[in-house]
Protein backbone atom coordinates (compact mmCIF):
# COMPACT_ATOMS: atom_id res chain seq x y z
CA UNK A 1 0.00 0.00 0.00
CA UNK A 2 1.08 3.54 -0.63
CA UNK A 3 2.27 5.37 2.38
CA UNK A 4 3.63 8.62 0.99
CA UNK A 5 2.78 10.61 -2.09
CA UNK A 6 4.43 13.92 -2.81
CA UNK A 7 4.01 16.32 -5.68
CA UNK A 8 6.16 19.40 -6.30
CA UNK A 9 7.14 19.14 -2.65
CA UNK A 10 9.18 22.02 -1.30
CA UNK A 11 10.71 21.50 2.16
CA UNK A 12 12.47 24.03 4.29
CA UNK A 13 11.97 26.39 7.22
CA UNK A 14 9.38 29.10 7.46
CA UNK A 15 8.86 30.24 3.89
CA UNK A 16 12.34 29.34 2.67
CA UNK A 17 12.59 26.25 0.47
CA UNK A 18 15.79 24.29 1.00
CA UNK A 19 15.11 21.62 -1.59
CA UNK A 20 12.34 20.75 -3.99
CA UNK A 21 11.34 17.30 -5.27
CA UNK A 22 9.00 17.09 -8.30
CA UNK A 23 7.28 13.82 -7.54
CA UNK A 24 7.76 10.63 -5.57
CA UNK A 25 5.92 7.79 -3.90
CA UNK A 26 6.80 5.50 -1.01
CA UNK A 27 4.98 2.24 -0.52
CA UNK A 28 5.06 -0.37 2.22
CA UNK A 29 8.18 -2.48 1.92
CA UNK A 30 10.12 0.27 0.11
CA UNK A 31 13.70 0.98 1.01
CA UNK A 32 14.76 4.51 0.15
CA UNK A 33 18.19 6.10 0.57
CA UNK A 34 18.18 9.89 0.45
CA UNK A 35 21.56 11.28 -0.37
CA UNK A 36 23.19 14.57 -1.26
CA UNK A 37 25.93 16.95 -0.24
CA UNK A 38 25.96 18.53 3.23
CA UNK A 39 23.20 21.07 3.48
CA UNK A 40 21.28 19.57 0.57
CA UNK A 41 18.21 19.08 2.73
CA UNK A 42 18.32 15.37 3.69
CA UNK A 43 17.42 16.02 7.34
CA UNK A 44 14.85 18.64 6.37
CA UNK A 45 13.12 16.20 4.02
CA UNK A 46 13.11 13.39 6.57
CA UNK A 47 11.69 15.65 9.29
CA UNK A 48 9.00 16.91 6.93
CA UNK A 49 8.02 13.36 6.04
CA UNK A 50 7.96 12.61 9.76
CA UNK A 51 5.52 15.43 10.38
CA UNK A 52 7.98 17.33 12.56
CA UNK A 53 8.29 20.18 10.04
CA UNK A 54 5.48 21.66 8.00
CA UNK A 55 5.95 21.48 4.23
CA UNK A 56 6.68 24.82 2.60
CA UNK A 57 5.18 24.18 -0.83
CA UNK A 58 3.51 21.51 -2.92
CA UNK A 59 1.47 18.52 -1.80
CA UNK A 60 2.36 15.83 0.64
CA UNK A 61 0.40 12.94 2.05
CA UNK A 62 2.18 10.89 4.70
CA UNK A 63 1.38 8.86 7.82
CA UNK A 64 1.02 10.98 10.97
CA UNK A 65 3.82 10.90 13.57
CA UNK A 66 3.59 8.32 16.33
CA UNK A 67 2.73 4.74 16.89
CA UNK A 68 2.00 2.86 13.69
CA UNK A 69 2.73 5.99 11.68
CA UNK A 70 5.95 7.88 10.88
CA UNK A 71 8.84 7.76 13.36
CA UNK A 72 12.07 9.75 13.01
CA UNK A 73 15.46 8.94 14.52
CA UNK A 74 18.05 11.70 14.97
CA UNK A 75 21.59 11.30 13.59
CA UNK A 76 23.18 11.90 16.99
CA UNK A 77 20.80 9.64 18.86
CA UNK A 78 18.72 11.47 21.44
CA UNK A 79 17.89 9.34 24.46
CA UNK A 80 15.80 10.39 27.42
CA UNK A 81 17.15 10.34 30.95
CA UNK A 82 17.04 6.81 32.37
CA UNK A 83 17.89 3.36 31.05
CA UNK A 84 17.71 1.88 27.58
CA UNK A 85 14.75 -0.23 28.70
CA UNK A 86 12.83 2.87 29.82
CA UNK A 87 13.48 4.60 26.49
CA UNK A 88 12.34 1.63 24.40
CA UNK A 89 9.30 1.18 26.61
CA UNK A 90 8.32 4.76 25.76
CA UNK A 91 8.45 3.89 22.09
CA UNK A 92 6.37 0.81 22.74
CA UNK A 93 3.83 2.93 24.61
CA UNK A 94 4.05 0.66 27.65
CA UNK A 95 3.88 -2.65 25.80
CA UNK A 96 6.66 -4.61 27.51
CA UNK A 97 6.55 -7.47 25.02
CA UNK A 98 6.97 -5.17 22.04
CA UNK A 99 9.83 -3.41 23.87
CA UNK A 100 11.56 -6.71 24.56
CA UNK A 101 11.25 -7.77 20.92
CA UNK A 102 12.64 -4.45 19.67
CA UNK A 103 15.63 -4.61 22.01
CA UNK A 104 16.40 -8.16 20.89
CA UNK A 105 16.05 -7.19 17.24
CA UNK A 106 18.85 -4.65 17.70
CA UNK A 107 20.92 -7.00 19.88
CA UNK A 108 20.85 -4.49 22.72
CA UNK A 109 19.73 -6.76 25.55
CA UNK A 110 23.19 -6.86 27.09
CA UNK A 111 23.23 -3.17 27.94
CA UNK A 112 19.56 -2.15 27.92
CA UNK A 113 19.38 -1.98 31.72
CA UNK A 114 22.25 0.45 32.06
CA UNK A 115 21.91 4.20 32.51
CA UNK A 116 22.10 5.66 29.02
CA UNK A 117 24.82 8.07 30.12
CA UNK A 118 27.22 5.15 30.40
CA UNK A 119 26.67 3.82 26.87
CA UNK A 120 28.97 4.19 23.87
CA UNK A 121 27.77 6.02 20.76
CA UNK A 122 27.07 2.76 18.95
CA UNK A 123 25.10 1.39 21.88
CA UNK A 124 23.06 4.58 22.12
CA UNK A 125 22.21 4.35 18.46
CA UNK A 126 21.03 0.77 18.85
CA UNK A 127 18.76 1.82 21.72
CA UNK A 128 17.38 4.72 19.66
CA UNK A 129 16.62 2.39 16.76
CA UNK A 130 15.04 -0.17 19.07
CA UNK A 131 12.86 2.59 20.54
CA UNK A 132 11.78 3.61 17.05
CA UNK A 133 10.81 0.14 15.89
CA UNK A 134 9.05 -0.53 19.18
CA UNK A 135 6.53 2.04 18.01
CA UNK A 136 5.82 -0.24 15.03
CA UNK A 137 6.04 2.57 12.47
CA UNK A 138 4.61 2.12 9.04
CA UNK A 139 7.27 4.57 7.87
CA UNK A 140 10.65 4.50 9.63
CA UNK A 141 12.83 7.54 8.94
CA UNK A 142 16.41 7.24 10.13
CA UNK A 143 18.92 10.04 9.77
CA UNK A 144 22.36 8.54 8.98
CA UNK A 145 21.94 5.20 10.76
CA UNK A 146 25.19 3.71 9.52
CA UNK A 147 27.44 6.55 10.64
CA UNK A 148 27.74 5.59 14.28
CA UNK A 149 26.88 1.89 14.49
CA UNK A 150 29.51 -0.64 15.45
CA UNK A 151 29.89 -4.03 13.71
CA UNK A 152 27.28 -5.78 15.82
CA UNK A 153 24.92 -2.88 15.40
CA UNK A 154 25.31 -2.81 11.64
CA UNK A 155 24.55 -6.49 11.47
CA UNK A 156 21.42 -6.15 13.59
CA UNK A 157 20.33 -3.13 11.59
CA UNK A 158 20.67 -4.91 8.25
CA UNK A 159 18.45 -7.71 9.58
CA UNK A 160 15.83 -5.14 10.53
CA UNK A 161 16.09 -3.57 7.10
CA UNK A 162 15.70 -6.93 5.47
CA UNK A 163 12.62 -7.95 7.42
CA UNK A 164 10.72 -4.76 8.23
CA UNK A 165 7.22 -4.87 6.68
CA UNK A 166 6.83 -1.14 6.59
CA UNK A 167 8.80 1.41 4.58
CA UNK A 168 12.25 2.60 5.59
CA UNK A 169 13.82 5.82 4.37
CA UNK A 170 17.33 6.66 5.49
CA UNK A 171 19.64 9.58 4.93
CA UNK A 172 23.11 8.70 3.72
CA UNK A 173 25.99 11.14 3.26
CA UNK A 174 27.09 11.42 -0.33
CA UNK A 175 30.51 9.89 0.23
CA UNK A 176 28.97 6.79 1.74
CA UNK A 177 26.46 5.98 -0.94
CA UNK A 178 27.75 2.89 -2.67
CA UNK A 179 26.77 -0.76 -2.74
CA UNK A 180 23.29 -0.13 -1.54
CA UNK A 181 20.23 -2.04 -2.54
CA UNK A 182 18.05 0.88 -1.61
CA UNK A 183 16.32 3.03 -4.16
CA UNK A 184 18.31 6.23 -4.28
CA UNK A 185 16.88 9.74 -4.14
CA UNK A 186 19.59 12.24 -4.79
CA UNK A 187 19.09 15.81 -3.57
CA UNK A 188 20.78 18.73 -5.21
CA UNK A 189 21.30 21.78 -3.04
CA UNK A 190 19.72 24.99 -4.30
Amino acid at each position, binding site marked *: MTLVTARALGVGYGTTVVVSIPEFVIAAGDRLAITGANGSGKTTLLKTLA*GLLPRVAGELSAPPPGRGGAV*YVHPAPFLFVGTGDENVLLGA*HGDREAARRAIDALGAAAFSRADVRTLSHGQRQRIALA*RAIAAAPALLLVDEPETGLDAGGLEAWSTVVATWPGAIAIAVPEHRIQNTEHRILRLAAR
Partner: protein
Amino acid sequence: MTAVFDALRLIVSGDAEVWAITAVSLFVSLSALLLATLAGVPLGYALAHARGRAAGALSSIVHTLTALPTVVVGLLLYFMLSASGPLGWMDLLYTRVAMIVGQTVLALPIVAALTLVAVQRLPAAAFETAASLGLGRLTRLRVLLREAHAAVASALLLAFARVFTELGAAIILGGNIRGETRTLTTVIALEHTKGDDARALALGLILMAIALAVNAGVHSRWLRKPS
Protein backbone atom coordinates in the same frame (compact mmCIF):
# COMPACT_ATOMS: atom_id res chain seq x y z
CA MET B 1 31.31 34.74 71.73
CA THR B 2 29.46 33.68 74.88
CA ALA B 3 26.30 34.16 72.87
CA VAL B 4 27.43 31.35 70.54
CA PHE B 5 28.00 28.98 73.46
CA ASP B 6 24.65 29.92 74.99
CA ALA B 7 23.08 29.27 71.63
CA LEU B 8 24.66 25.85 71.24
CA ARG B 9 23.63 24.93 74.75
CA LEU B 10 20.07 25.92 73.93
CA ILE B 11 20.00 23.72 70.86
CA VAL B 12 21.55 20.71 72.53
CA SER B 13 19.33 20.95 75.61
CA GLY B 14 16.35 20.08 73.44
CA ASP B 15 14.35 23.10 74.57
CA ALA B 16 10.78 22.14 73.70
CA GLU B 17 9.75 25.56 72.54
CA VAL B 18 12.70 25.81 70.16
CA TRP B 19 11.79 22.55 68.47
CA ALA B 20 8.10 23.49 68.35
CA ILE B 21 9.03 26.71 66.56
CA THR B 22 11.24 24.77 64.15
CA ALA B 23 8.37 22.40 63.42
CA VAL B 24 6.04 25.30 62.59
CA SER B 25 8.65 26.79 60.25
CA LEU B 26 9.05 23.52 58.40
CA PHE B 27 5.33 22.81 58.26
CA VAL B 28 4.46 26.22 56.84
CA SER B 29 7.28 26.40 54.30
CA LEU B 30 7.00 22.82 53.09
CA SER B 31 3.25 23.16 52.67
CA ALA B 32 3.75 26.34 50.69
CA LEU B 33 6.39 24.64 48.55
CA LEU B 34 4.05 21.73 47.86
CA LEU B 35 1.22 24.01 46.74
CA ALA B 36 3.59 26.15 44.70
CA THR B 37 4.91 23.04 42.97
CA LEU B 38 1.46 21.63 42.19
CA ALA B 39 0.45 24.90 40.59
CA GLY B 40 3.77 26.29 39.39
CA VAL B 41 5.32 23.36 37.54
CA PRO B 42 2.33 22.82 35.19
CA LEU B 43 2.11 26.59 34.74
CA GLY B 44 5.78 26.87 33.78
CA TYR B 45 5.45 23.88 31.46
CA ALA B 46 2.38 25.36 29.77
CA LEU B 47 4.01 28.76 29.36
CA ALA B 48 7.06 27.12 27.77
CA HIS B 49 4.82 25.82 24.99
CA ALA B 50 2.53 28.76 24.63
CA ARG B 51 2.94 31.13 21.71
CA GLY B 52 1.61 34.58 21.09
CA ARG B 53 1.77 37.94 22.77
CA ALA B 54 -0.51 37.08 25.66
CA ALA B 55 1.72 34.17 26.58
CA GLY B 56 4.80 36.34 26.32
CA ALA B 57 3.21 38.95 28.56
CA LEU B 58 2.22 36.33 31.10
CA SER B 59 5.75 34.94 31.15
CA SER B 60 7.09 38.43 31.81
CA ILE B 61 4.64 38.91 34.66
CA VAL B 62 5.60 35.60 36.23
CA HIS B 63 9.28 36.52 36.07
CA THR B 64 8.60 39.92 37.62
CA LEU B 65 6.58 38.39 40.45
CA THR B 66 9.60 36.38 41.59
CA ALA B 67 10.86 39.63 43.09
CA LEU B 68 7.77 40.39 45.17
CA PRO B 69 8.83 41.92 48.46
CA THR B 70 7.73 39.64 51.28
CA VAL B 71 6.24 42.46 53.33
CA VAL B 72 4.20 43.61 50.35
CA VAL B 73 2.73 40.14 49.95
CA GLY B 74 2.10 40.09 53.68
CA LEU B 75 0.34 43.45 53.63
CA LEU B 76 -1.79 42.76 50.56
CA LEU B 77 -2.98 39.43 51.90
CA TYR B 78 -3.52 41.01 55.31
CA PHE B 79 -5.98 43.47 53.82
CA MET B 80 -7.75 40.67 52.03
CA LEU B 81 -7.92 38.24 54.94
CA SER B 82 -8.67 40.76 57.67
CA ALA B 83 -12.15 40.55 59.21
CA SER B 84 -13.02 43.80 57.48
CA GLY B 85 -11.63 42.62 54.15
CA PRO B 86 -13.21 40.73 51.24
CA LEU B 87 -12.03 37.31 52.43
CA GLY B 88 -12.58 38.04 56.11
CA TRP B 89 -15.38 35.50 56.24
CA MET B 90 -12.75 32.75 55.92
CA ASP B 91 -11.36 33.77 59.32
CA LEU B 92 -7.83 32.86 58.27
CA LEU B 93 -5.82 35.82 59.51
CA TYR B 94 -3.31 35.00 62.26
CA THR B 95 -3.35 31.31 61.47
CA ARG B 96 -0.72 29.03 60.00
CA VAL B 97 -2.92 28.67 56.95
CA ALA B 98 -2.62 32.39 56.24
CA MET B 99 1.15 32.07 56.44
CA ILE B 100 1.06 29.14 54.04
CA VAL B 101 -1.00 31.20 51.60
CA GLY B 102 1.48 34.08 51.81
CA GLN B 103 4.47 31.86 51.27
CA THR B 104 2.78 30.04 48.39
CA VAL B 105 2.32 33.40 46.68
CA LEU B 106 6.04 34.03 47.12
CA ALA B 107 7.14 30.60 45.96
CA LEU B 108 4.83 30.07 43.01
CA PRO B 109 6.40 32.59 40.60
CA ILE B 110 9.85 31.18 41.31
CA VAL B 111 8.75 27.64 40.59
CA ALA B 112 6.81 28.64 37.47
CA ALA B 113 9.49 30.94 36.03
CA LEU B 114 12.35 28.50 36.52
CA THR B 115 10.34 25.55 35.23
CA LEU B 116 9.49 27.65 32.18
CA VAL B 117 13.16 28.36 31.54
CA ALA B 118 14.13 24.75 32.24
CA VAL B 119 11.65 23.37 29.72
CA GLN B 120 12.51 25.99 27.10
CA ARG B 121 16.16 25.06 27.36
CA LEU B 122 15.57 21.43 26.59
CA PRO B 123 17.18 20.46 23.26
CA ALA B 124 14.89 20.54 20.26
CA ALA B 125 15.62 16.85 19.79
CA ALA B 126 13.79 16.11 23.05
CA PHE B 127 10.59 17.71 21.79
CA GLU B 128 11.02 16.17 18.35
CA THR B 129 11.54 12.68 19.72
CA ALA B 130 8.53 12.97 21.98
CA ALA B 131 6.42 14.14 19.05
CA SER B 132 7.80 11.57 16.68
CA LEU B 133 7.09 8.69 19.04
CA GLY B 134 3.56 10.00 19.42
CA LEU B 135 3.72 10.24 23.20
CA GLY B 136 0.46 11.13 24.96
CA ARG B 137 0.17 14.54 26.64
CA LEU B 138 0.69 13.30 30.17
CA THR B 139 3.53 10.97 29.20
CA ARG B 140 5.14 13.86 27.36
CA LEU B 141 4.79 16.10 30.43
CA ARG B 142 6.33 13.43 32.65
CA VAL B 143 9.18 12.68 30.24
CA LEU B 144 10.09 16.31 29.53
CA LEU B 145 9.98 17.30 33.20
CA ARG B 146 12.20 14.33 33.92
CA GLU B 147 14.61 15.58 31.27
CA ALA B 148 14.68 18.94 33.03
CA HIS B 149 14.70 17.47 36.51
CA ALA B 150 17.98 19.05 37.57
CA ALA B 151 16.77 22.53 36.72
CA VAL B 152 13.34 21.90 38.24
CA ALA B 153 14.94 20.56 41.43
CA SER B 154 17.04 23.72 41.58
CA ALA B 155 13.89 25.78 41.19
CA LEU B 156 12.18 24.00 44.09
CA LEU B 157 15.28 24.35 46.22
CA LEU B 158 15.45 28.07 45.54
CA ALA B 159 11.75 28.51 46.25
CA PHE B 160 12.11 26.66 49.55
CA ALA B 161 15.11 28.76 50.56
CA ARG B 162 13.13 31.89 49.81
CA VAL B 163 10.10 31.04 51.90
CA PHE B 164 11.87 29.22 54.73
CA THR B 165 13.99 32.28 55.47
CA GLU B 166 11.46 35.03 54.85
CA LEU B 167 10.05 37.21 57.61
CA GLY B 168 7.63 39.78 56.18
CA ALA B 169 4.73 37.57 55.17
CA ALA B 170 5.07 35.22 58.13
CA ILE B 171 4.99 37.94 60.74
CA ILE B 172 2.22 40.06 59.23
CA LEU B 173 -0.07 37.15 58.40
CA GLY B 174 0.75 35.02 61.43
CA GLY B 175 0.91 37.63 64.18
CA ASN B 176 3.78 35.82 65.91
CA ILE B 177 1.41 34.13 68.35
CA ARG B 178 3.08 32.00 70.98
CA GLY B 179 2.41 28.32 70.43
CA GLU B 180 0.63 28.96 67.12
CA THR B 181 2.30 31.05 64.47
CA ARG B 182 5.83 31.58 65.67
CA THR B 183 8.48 30.50 63.21
CA LEU B 184 12.26 30.59 63.32
CA THR B 185 12.42 33.92 61.50
CA THR B 186 9.62 35.63 63.42
CA VAL B 187 11.05 34.61 66.77
CA ILE B 188 14.56 35.69 65.80
CA ALA B 189 13.07 39.11 65.06
CA LEU B 190 11.19 39.07 68.37
CA GLU B 191 14.17 37.98 70.45
CA HIS B 192 16.27 40.64 68.78
CA THR B 193 13.90 43.42 69.82
CA LYS B 194 13.74 41.97 73.31
CA GLY B 195 17.50 41.96 73.44
CA ASP B 196 17.88 38.21 73.96
CA ASP B 197 20.89 37.45 71.79
CA ALA B 198 21.48 33.87 72.88
CA ARG B 199 18.05 32.74 71.82
CA ALA B 200 18.12 34.72 68.59
CA LEU B 201 21.47 33.24 67.66
CA ALA B 202 20.39 29.70 68.54
CA LEU B 203 17.42 29.96 66.25
CA GLY B 204 19.56 31.52 63.57
CA LEU B 205 21.96 28.59 63.71
CA ILE B 206 19.12 26.09 63.45
CA LEU B 207 17.70 28.00 60.50
CA MET B 208 21.02 27.92 58.67
CA ALA B 209 21.62 24.28 59.53
CA ILE B 210 18.29 23.20 58.07
CA ALA B 211 18.75 25.29 54.95
CA LEU B 212 22.19 23.75 54.41
CA ALA B 213 20.98 20.22 55.10
CA VAL B 214 18.14 20.52 52.61
CA ASN B 215 20.51 21.92 50.01
CA ALA B 216 23.06 19.19 50.54
CA GLY B 217 20.38 16.51 50.44
CA VAL B 218 18.88 17.69 47.16
CA HIS B 219 22.29 18.16 45.58
CA SER B 220 23.48 14.69 46.39
CA ARG B 221 20.27 13.11 45.21
CA TRP B 222 19.37 15.01 42.04
CA LEU B 223 22.05 17.41 41.02
CA ARG B 224 25.02 15.13 41.01
CA LYS B 225 27.00 14.86 37.76
CA PRO B 226 27.44 11.28 36.46
CA SER B 227 30.84 9.83 37.35
